[in-house]
């Protein structure tokens, strides 16, 4: 399969690879996908007092498009508020990376990953959210 330039760029130079402390209250972790399907994405966000994502890290097991989708996502969510990050749509990722139809599921997985990370952050900080 031929890959687009942006996919290759993210694949060859993935941004923000790594791991944040999942026990830190300011960190939300999303792990989506399944080894059986050939894709597992782990996305972590670190949220500051203002509700802004100041750091994001990922690790992905999957094809080049899955790696590129999650790498791009970490770039996009940095500096966004948690609410804004939740609004990111898979179609925007697919469009930016020019994913072919058979790779759309990679962008869907990325959208699932950010939603899961935000949910995890909310769960950890439930009391804080209610009082806010």
């Amino acid at each position, binding site marked *: *399969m031929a*890959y687009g330039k942006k996919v290759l760029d993210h*694949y060859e130079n*993935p941004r923000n*690879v790594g*791991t944040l402390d999942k026990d830190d209250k300011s960190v939300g972790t999303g*792990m*989506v*996908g*399944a*080894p*059986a*399907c*050939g*894709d*597992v*994405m*782990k996305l972590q966000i670190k949220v500051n007092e203002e509700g802004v994502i100041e750091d994001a890290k990922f*690790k*992905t*097991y*999957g*094809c*080049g498009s*899955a*790696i590129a989708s999650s790498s791009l996502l970490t770039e996009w969510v940095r500096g966004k508020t948690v609410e804004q990050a939740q609004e990111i749509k898979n179609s925007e990722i697919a469009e930016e990376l020019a994913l072919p139809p*058979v790779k759309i*599921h990679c962008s*869907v*997985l990325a959208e*699932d990953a950010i939603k899961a990370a935000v949910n995890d952050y909310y769960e950890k900080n439930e009391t804080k959210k209610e009082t806010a």
Partner: protein
Amino acid sequence: MKDMKTPIYLDYASTTPIDKRVADKMFEFMTMDGKYGNPASRSHSFGWDADEAVSISRKHIADLINADPREIVWTSGATESDNLAIKGAAHFYKKKGKHIITVKTEHKAVLDACRQLEREGFEVTYMEPMSDGILDLEKLEAEIREDTVLISVMHVNNEIGVIQDIEKIGELARSKNIIFHVDAAQSAGKIDIDLEKMKVDLMSFSAHKIYGPKGIGALYVRRKPRVRLEAQIHGGGHERGLRSGTLPTHQIVGMGEAFRIAKEEMNKDYEKILQLRNRLWNGVKDMEEVYLNGDFENRYPGIMNISFNYVEGESLIMATKDIAVSSGSACTSASLEPSFVLRAIGRSDELAHSSLRMSIGRFTTEEDIDLTIETVTKAVEKLRALSPLWEMYKDGIDISKIEWAAH
């Protein structure tokens, strides 16, 4: 190594380049200056010359497998040979019975021909091999029924390279009076085939897996005891009515020459490929979580299928673009299913998704193998640094115990 020609071709199980000697020979049968006649033309020397070349080629095929030239039927390739053998025998012997036995790790040409027969009312048993990829003969015997008419088992597996015990299966099939078909596309010219010893009734061959041209193959059809087939392609009655269509002289000559060379050089090729295989395996086997798929001893060394755990196959192919290999994971064909062959031998989904098939051939060099080792090692390290599964493995988390949400 800077001036090496990349990508390095390590996909000989997929196809091979045509040997220069073969290409030269083929060219003699194409243009005005050559012998371009129709082998079926009986009225002039153009036809006689072409017919003679076809006869010589037929003998080259027969010589390699210790058969009679009259037992060779030209086809367009192993896929057609498989179809002719399986559908042809099933149709001819359908009054005798409607049951067929084959194996889950067969080539799609065999499996899909069997599926078609199921739609026509035949019953097919798809056997699971043992975890080393080899068929358990006791289990095979237990699957045989009164109405079993055909058993189809491949010689060398195209994905993992394991060799089935054709001689023993042949004895079993013959003792029960069942037609036995063998897909030998990956074994002919690479390991010994002796049809005087092997009780095989039908055997499929391809030219392009053994340095011949694409688009030509053959089916061996045993004469003693005689095996009958119903033709699948009808027309001018060529090949004793079993396969009509003008014989492509240049293709046939190419296949004949490729098989002639294979008979002469098989032992030399085998030894060289074995050395290179050992060099490759020794170069990667000490990495953590590396698994060879299929039995180590009972295999053709030219095909190696290795799983690099916690690394996904398609991204591994991307990271190893200097070597042309194929992924056991069928992601590249857009189906997202892990290799059905690896699943059939009981590999976990992760391992099935993490495999590379590297196949070595006549023109592979030590430098090719060294660069492959270096490239694969780097790629696996890079992708493991990216892999959440590798991280979990390193943290001592048992991935098989996690409840993943399938998507």
